[in-house]
């Protein structure tokens, strides 16, 4: 039951993008097409889960025992940066079309605050390893849900005549706002 609560909370109630304001850059950047949004979700999920596991282990096995918790930020970001580069290299070889589609945003996963944010939140919330993994995965799914829904709306808006002043980022932000408004309905479920 606890896991269910974590999952529902991470996906709907405390949605990482719509409620926590993390991962906004890719949310606004890679959401022009549904297909790239799905690809990005995959990449983020992968990196997020792995990063959470590795940073969790580092925190528990290295930083805490040595009493150097203040190195959290530096060491976490190092690991994440390395991981992202790993994914980038592998993706470039294994699936060039996906690599092309995600383009510049793969390196940006490094600076995707959602990844680092989740890694830090896991430590703050004092999860055990399994909970951490569940939390990371469902947060990524929540990210994906918001991203893909958002991409769907943007794809549709692309075919419509949006007023000149609102085109591009402004209308995207308004849509995100309204989506967040709708998702507020889930508040209190957990």
């Amino acid at each position, binding site marked *: 039951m606890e896991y269910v609560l974590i999952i529902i909370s991470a996906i709907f109630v405390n949605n990482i993008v719509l409620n926590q304001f993390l991962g906004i850059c890719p949310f606004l950047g890679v959401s022009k097409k549904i297909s790239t949004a799905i690809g990005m979700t995959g990449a983020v999920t992968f990196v997020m889960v792995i990063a959470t596991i590795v940073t969790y282990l580092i925190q528990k096995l290295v*930083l805490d025992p040595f009493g*150097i918790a203040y190195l959290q930020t530096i060491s976490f970001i*190092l690991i994440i940066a*390395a991981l992202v*580069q*790993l994914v980038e*290299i592998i993706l470039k*070889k*294994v699936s060039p079309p996906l690599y092309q589609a995600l383009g510049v945003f793969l390196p940006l996963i490094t600076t995707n605050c959602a990844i680092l944010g989740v890694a830090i939140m896991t430590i703050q919330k004092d999860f055990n390893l399994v909970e951490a993994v569940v939390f990371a995965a469902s947060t990524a799914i929540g990210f994906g849900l918001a991203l893909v829904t958002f991409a769907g709306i943007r794809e549709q808006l692309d075919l419509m005549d949006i007023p000149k002043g609102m085109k591009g980022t402004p209308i995207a932000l308004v849509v995100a706002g309204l989506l967040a408004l709708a998702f507020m309905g889930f508040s209190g479920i957990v």
Partner: protein
Amino acid sequence: MNVISITIITLASLGVAAAIILYFVAQKFKVFEDPRIDEVEEVLPAANCGGCGFPGCRAFAEALVKADDISDLNCPVGGADTMSKAASILGKKVQAAAPTVAVLKCNGTCESRPRLNHYDGAESCSIAASLYGGETGCSYGCLGMGECVDACQFNAMYMDKETGLPVIKEENCVSCGACVAACPKKIIEIRKQGPKNRRIYVACANKDKGGVAKKACSSACIACSKCMKACPFGAIIVHQNVAQINPETCRYCRKCTPECPTGAILEANFPPKKEKKELVKDKAE
């Protein structure tokens, strides 16, 4: 001391571990991509207009890098300047292509072409053209709904409300050919800019016989061949009931223009006629 050393050791070992893993993975999954593509793309205008015949500047850059001989490839937007830059990156030579500009091969204004019916379909030249010949008797001329203007990315065209025809702003035109592709009647031509930007061309595309064409439009080419006879350089031919001036052989003598009974031959950017007559007189004297 201890804290500092632990800090340093931890960070260093983390960094080293990451570096080693990355190095091996990078070796294993190496993908080669020609770095020159990026360099060439950098010098292209990034208009992605498709004027070069490729689906965007990146594709054109790839084509340039791959091609052994880039003399056929030309970026009309950037012109000779861009091409020479690109060529220098690739260490290849480029031939200067003559600058070109779009011209409209129709002078059927509202006045010269009486309207015979009223079009009530969707505002689109292509739709009207696939439906029928047009609101006037000329089924070759401009339909006047400005699809070419919409296609132009460079703000080089506008619709003249008086004449109902599009006007090309030469100073903005980069001759990318988007309007040519957009026009369902194919009455826009990419033509050599000519010396001092001067051009002589036939502003008509009507392939009907003279009588029919004349009835439909008072400024139509009626294929009377007078211009052909007047041309001392044989630059004019009449093909399918329309006169055509070959820009390669035309010497800009302007003898054909006054011969045309319907005024279908247009001159661009020449000094006013009077001056020219004086010049002729001067020479005669």
